[in-house]
């Protein structure tokens, strides 16, 4: 870390909000604890079991990994609407009979390359083609789903028995947790280090906070933007591997509306939609809050429509609290 970097950071992110961010996390942690308490009280026999906790984390893994990428894009001042579609496309591409004939390793590499490749296209369109991120990634959403449908002939593609190493990622358990949970943890940890301990992360904040200032400070804003969308695409590729492991399929219907879930998790995690400020831990907590709600509702036998209402209410409350937090101390 050099003096120049520190200056840049303090310029883009004033000291005060940092404290408030911590406070916001306390709110999210409190929400998690509260939800857990509700679970323990309403379903004492089923909620606080190791099996249920493992189940919740495994469910959170796909959307969680995607949210890590989304956090970078949003802090960098962009948005990525194509994440769900990219995951679907990567899962389909990796499960075509042709790909499957090369074995599980190629399937994994294929998913990662497809995700990253599509993310690069997003990035090129936005950074060098000067398209608005909303429009470029919206176009990618539609096109990637279309391609996934065409490639799979709109069928559900099963992972073939000889490639059951893929499925083993979710059936093999270490310390009571399926491997996909460790993938999620590894991606989250890597994301945290990248955001908070590297120049790449610092530049992400700078570019999102004020791209012009970032450019004057010598950052190649366009290249950085390209990289952050590629990163988001890579995360979609990882998520595709997890969804293949969990469902044993690739399908163009995977990841429906994931873009909204991921954006919602990032927002309730305290990241500004306008960019320049945010935390990865908040986003992960946001994902866990949503997954926990789904789990609680199903344990208690409540309908999905009520879940949606609860999720909507939580987004509004979280953002209202966030705005209060921003105003109050000054």
């Amino acid at each position, binding site marked *: 870390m050099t003096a120049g970097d520190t200056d840049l950071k303090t310029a883009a992110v004033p000291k005060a909000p940092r404290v408030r961010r911590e406070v916001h996390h306390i709110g999210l942690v409190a929400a998690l604890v509260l939800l857990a308490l509700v679970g323990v009280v309403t379903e004492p026999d089923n909620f606080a079991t190791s099996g249920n906790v493992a189940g919740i984390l495994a469910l959170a893994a796909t959307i969680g990994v995607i949210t890590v990428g989304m956090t970078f894009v949003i802090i960098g001042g962009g948005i990525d609407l194509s994440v769900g579609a990219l995951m679907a496309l990567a899962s389909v591409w990796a499960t075509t009979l042709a*790909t499957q004939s090369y074995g599980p390793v190629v399937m994994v590499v294929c998913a990662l390359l497809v995700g990253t490749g599509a993310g690069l296209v997003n990035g090129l369109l936005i950074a060098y083609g000067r398209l608005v991120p909303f429009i470029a990634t919206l176009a990618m959403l539609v096109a990637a789903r279309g391609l996934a449908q065409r490639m799979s002939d709109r069928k559900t593609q099963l992972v073939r028995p000889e490639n059951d190493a893929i499925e083993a990622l979710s059936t093999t358990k270490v310390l009571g947790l399926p491997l996909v949970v460790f993938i999620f943890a590894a991606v989250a940890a890597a994301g945290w280090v990248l955001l908070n301990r590297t120049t790449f992360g610092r530049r992400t904040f700078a570019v999102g906070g004020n791209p012009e200032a970032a450019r004057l400070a010598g950052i190649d804003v366009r290249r950085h933007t390209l990289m952050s969308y590629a990163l988001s695409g890579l995360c979609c590729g990882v998520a595709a591997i997890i969804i293949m492991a*969990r*469902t044993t399929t690739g*399908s163009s219907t995977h990841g429906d509306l994931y873009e909204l879930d991921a954006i919602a998790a990032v927002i309730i995690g305290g990241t500004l939609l306008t960019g320049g400020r945010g935390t990865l831990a908040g986003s992960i907590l946001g994902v866990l809050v949503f997954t926990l709600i789904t789990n609680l509702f199903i344990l208690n036998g409540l309908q999905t429509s009520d879940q949606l209402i609860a999720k909507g209410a939580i987004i509004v409350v979280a953002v209202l609290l966030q705005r209060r937090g921003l105003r109050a101390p000054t």
Partner: protein
Amino acid sequence: MSEHTSDRPTTPSRRGLLFGGALAAAGTLAAACTGNDPKETTPAAQTGNLGGGDNAKPGRPVTIGFSAPAADHGWIAAITKNAQAEAKRYSDLTFKPVEPTNDINQQISAVESLISAKVNALVLLPNDGEQLNQVARKAMDAGIPVINLDRVFPDKLSYRTWIGGDNYGMGVAAGHHVGRRLKEKGVAKPVIVEVQGIATLPLTQERSKGFADALKTYGFSVTAKQDAKFTVETGNQVASNLLQAHKKIDALWNHDDDQGVGVLAAVKQAGRKDFFMVGGAGSANAMREIKSGGVLEATVTYSPTMAASAVRVARLIAQGKGMADLMELQVPQSLTLTSETVTRQNVDQYLPLGFES
């Protein structure tokens, strides 16, 4: 910044190399991996018997229009495929399908184009019966008989013949299988769990009602039900939560074999073997599972072969013929398929009719 500017000259080239390599690899993979096995089997066409009497013999040449939703689901994909395969079997039949779509507006204009093309009969699976009622009525008014496939039009003036599945009957078939099996096992107070499709659809509500009604005849009731969205992913998500909620389950009915792939994966991941499962629709994959003797014990059909039957019926109507096995000189106004139960005993017979999900 200084340390980064210092090593800049070297890094881009290294990265460029890596990046280029990755792109090249992606290119090779792309070329290698896009292909799916091209061999297409149309089982319905191979096994179905041609209609009785001399109906199969070439008659007056007719043109039949066909419109269905775009397939985002194995079942709908099988509908279009079965219709096409059936049409190919008749030399006197010209098949005129329009681009499938999930947009109501587009389907309306597609049907309008078939009306102005003056087809002799129209096979129509609407995205929504209520919303396409008007345009179906328009076809009937123009003298084109409409064969309404599965999703029914509310107005009987809008179609000549309806052919479709029995959602209530599907629930009944599943309920009877579950009830009978549990009685055999002598389970007193069974835990019966239901994974539904989209809960707001009338078809889902009918399936659930049939299931509950049939179970009632055995003195059983559904312990818990939860809705998925007909996709593998939602099936997996809902089932893995439901399995957590119920430590002991005796029977599970899943409404749909497509989402059933996700349900089965969830069962496997949870390592549960305490219950048996019944599926719905009758996909080839589900039948293979039944044959291999896993947790999935049976499935109740809602067969997309109905599309092939609809084309057959449309041809007869357009040619003014009746159904050879019936007394009447004309095709009946309504044909409801019965939901058949596929188990390990009869699975070999049904496998050719199963659709690839």
